[in-house]
C-alpha cells in the first residue's frame, strides 16, 4: 500500500445525495483539487455543474481514465458496497467521509483492502489538507495555514481548534490528516507516522485525540523523534472521563485486546504509554506551540 498525494491526483466522488458532499465538492474545486467525475447510482449520464455523472465506478474509469482517489459520501449502510466497488475498479486510495459505519462492515472492507493493498482513510474522516496545495475532504481550508507542522487527528472539531492555536503562534501546517472518528478506521496513526518520516515538508508532528495507539505507533513516533522530527500529543478527556464501573469483564476486555490482557485501559495509562515512548503530552491546547518550539530548537 502506497500513499499518493500528488497535487494533480485525479479524484472521484461517490455519492452526492447530501449537502455535505455538494459543499465539499465546491470547496475542493475552488482549491484546485482535480475532481473528474461523480458516481451516483441512477444518475448516470447526467451532470452536476461541469462534472459528468456515472452509475458505476468502472464506467467512470472507462470514460475518464485512471483515478487515484475516491471520496465516499454515500450513506453509512451503502459505504461497504461503494468501497468494494472502488476496490474492484482498482482505485488505490479511498477516503470515507461518511460517519457511523457498522463495525462489521468495516471489518469486511479492511479484509478486502488488505488483499488489494488499497489505502483506506476513515470511516468518519474529514480527509486530508495540505494548506494552499491540496484539499481532499470536507475541511474548511480557511482554518489552516501553510507551514511545517503535521497534524494526525482522530477528531475533527479538535483539529480545527488546534490548527487555530498553531496559526496564532505562527506555526503553519505541512499536512493535516484526519484518520477518522469512527471506532474502527482503516489507515492507522502508525502508517501516517511512517509516511511522515520521508515527507520533506514536515518538521514536527502533533497527535490529536484518542489515537489508536499501540507499540508499533510508539516505535514510529520514536523513530521520527530520533530523526529530529519531534512528536507532541494532545489527549482530550484527562479530567472529564469518569471511570466506568469495571463490573463487566467484556468492557474491560474489549479495551485491552491486541495487547497482553490487563485490567483496564484508562486515559492515564495511555498517557503512560506516551511517556514511555518519550512523547510529551500537552496539558492544554495552548501548550502545544511552546512544546513544539522547545523540541524543535533542540533538534
Amino acid at each position, binding site marked *: 500500500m502506497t500513499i499518493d498525494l500528488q497535487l494533480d491526483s485525479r479524484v472521484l466522488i461517490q455519492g452526492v445525495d447530501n449537502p455535505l458532499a455538494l459543499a465539499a465538492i465546491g470547496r475542493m474545486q475552488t482549491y484546485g483539487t482535480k475532481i473528474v467525475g461523480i458516481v451516483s447510482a441512477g444518475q448516470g449520464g447526467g451532470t452536476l455543474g461541469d462534472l459528468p455523472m456515472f452509475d458505476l465506478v468502472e464506467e467512470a474509469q472507462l470514460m475518464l481514465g485512471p483515478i487515484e482517489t475516491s471520496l465516499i459520501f454515500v450513506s453509512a449502510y451503502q459505504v461497504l458496497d461503494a468501497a468494494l466497488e472502488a476496490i474492484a475498479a482498482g482505485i488505490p486510495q479511498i477516503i470515507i467521509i461518511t460517519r457511523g459505519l457498522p463495525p*462489521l462492515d468495516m*471489518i469486511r472492507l479492511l479484509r478486502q483492502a488488505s488483499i488489494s493493498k488499497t489505502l483506506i482513510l476513515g470511516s468518519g474522516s474529514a480527509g486530508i489538507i495540505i494548506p494552499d496545495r491540496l484539499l481532499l475532504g470536507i475541511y*474548511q481550508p480557511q482554518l489552516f495555514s501553510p507551514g511545517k507542522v503535521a497534524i494526525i487527528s482522530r477528531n475533527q472539531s479538535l483539529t480545527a481548534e488546534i490548527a*487555530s492555536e498553531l496559526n496564532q503562534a505562527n506555526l503553519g501546517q505541512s499536512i493535516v490528516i484526519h484518520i477518522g472518528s469512527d471506532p474502527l478506521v482503516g489507515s492507522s496513526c502508525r502508517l501516517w507516522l511512517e509516511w511522515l518520516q520521508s515527507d520533506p515538508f514536515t518538521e514536527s508532528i502533533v497527535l490529536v485525540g484518542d489515537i*489508536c495507539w499501540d507499540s508499533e505507533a510508539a516505535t514510529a513516533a520514536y523513530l521520527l523523534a530520533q530523526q529530529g522530527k519531534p512528536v507532541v500529543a494532545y489527549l482530550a478527556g484527562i479530567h472529564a472521563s469518569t471511570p466506568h464501573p469495571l463490573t463487566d469483564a467484556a468492557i474491560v*476486555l474489549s479495551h485491552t485486546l491486541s495487547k497482553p490482557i490487563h485490567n483496564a485501559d484508562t486515559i492515564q495509562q495511555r498517557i503512560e504509554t506516551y511517556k514511555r515512548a518519550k512523547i510529551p503530552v500537552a496539558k492544554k491546547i495552548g501548550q502545544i506551540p511552546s512544546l513544539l518550539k522547545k523540541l524543535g530548537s533542540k533538534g
Partner: protein
Amino acid sequence: MDLLEYQAKELFREVGIPVLPSQRIDRPTDLKALRIPYPIVLKSQVSVGNRGRAGGIRFVENTIDAIAAARTIFNLPILGEYPQVLLAEAKYNTSQEFYLAIVIDRLACRPVLLGSTDGGMNINAILNQIQQVVVYEEFSSFYARRLALKMGLHGDLMLAVSEIIEKMYALMRAQDLDLVEINPLGIDRNGAVMALDGKISVNHYAVGRHPNLKPWQVVDVARNRLGTLSPLFTNIGNISILCSGNGLALAMLDGIAQGGGQVAQCIVVDPACREDIQIALDRISTNSRRERSPSTPDVDVLLVNFVGSEIDSCQQVMQYFPRYSNLTTIWRVLEHDRDRLAGLLPLSIKLVTNFDRAISQTLVIAKQ
C-alpha cells in the same frame, strides 16, 4: 444498545444456543399462570451488572414466595435502575461454569473470540484463565475449535463449546453486535451446555438495519438528539457547555476541571440543526438562575464553541441567544467571525478568539 437478559436469550434460542425454559413476568400476579415447574429463579431485568449481589436474583419454591419475591425485586433499584420486567427461569445444577464472548478489537479491527474456564461473577478469576483467538480472515469453525482447545478442553466438551461459539458468531454477524457474551455457560454432570446468563450489545450505528430489534429499543429522544454528556457530571456546577463535537467537549471539560470549575452540563449539537440548538438552549436555560429550584444547579455562564463546524454557525446561532440574556455567554470564535459579529451581539455574549482564554474567562465568571 444493550439488550436485557430475556431479549438476549430470545436471540440465543433463535440460533440454537441452549437456554433454560423461562417466562417473562410483567407483574407479580403473572406468576399465578407460571408454566415452568418449581423451583424457579426470578431475575431482575436491568441493564447493569451485579444483579445477584444487589438482591435482584432470588430462588423460590412456590407461588406465594414467588409473588412476594417478585414484588421485592420490582421495587429494588439496581444502580438506580428499576426493572420493568422479571424473568422466571427453571433452576439448573452446574458442575462447571465457563465464560465465552465475542468482541470487536478496535486496534486490530477484527473480531476476537474470548473464553475462560472460570466463568461467573469473579472477573479476576475469568481474566486469569482468559484465552483469545483473533478472527483475521473470514470466520470458519476452526477458529471456534482453536479457542476451545486453548481453553484446555477436549473431546465432546471441546466440540460442544466450539459449537456454541460458532452460533454466537453467527448471531453477531446476523445482528451486527458489538458484544455477545455468555456468562456463565453452565456445564452439567453429563457435559451438556446451557447459556445461563447472556449479554448482547447491538452496534448503535447498525440498529437501523435490524427491524426485528426495533421493539426493544429504548429511546430517550432528547438525549439521542443532543448527544448530551450530562450524565457525566454532578449537579453542583454552574457552567454549561454547548459545542459541536465530542473531542471539543472533552477538551473544554478538561480545561474547566484544570481551572477548578464545575460543569453543570455539556451538550454536543450539530450546529447546522437549528432545532437541536433550540432544545439544548431550552435545557440550559431551565437550569439557569431565573428558574432555579433547590434540586437544579444555578448556571451562571455558558461556554459555546462551534469552531471548525461545517456551516457558518455564528450567524445562524446568534439569533437564538438574545432570549437568554440572563445568562453570560463566552463564545469561542475564529478571528474573522469576531470581526464580523462584533457590535451585532448583546452585551451578555463575549466573543473570545483563543481556546484557553475562553476557558479562563469562563472560570472567572463562574467563580464570581
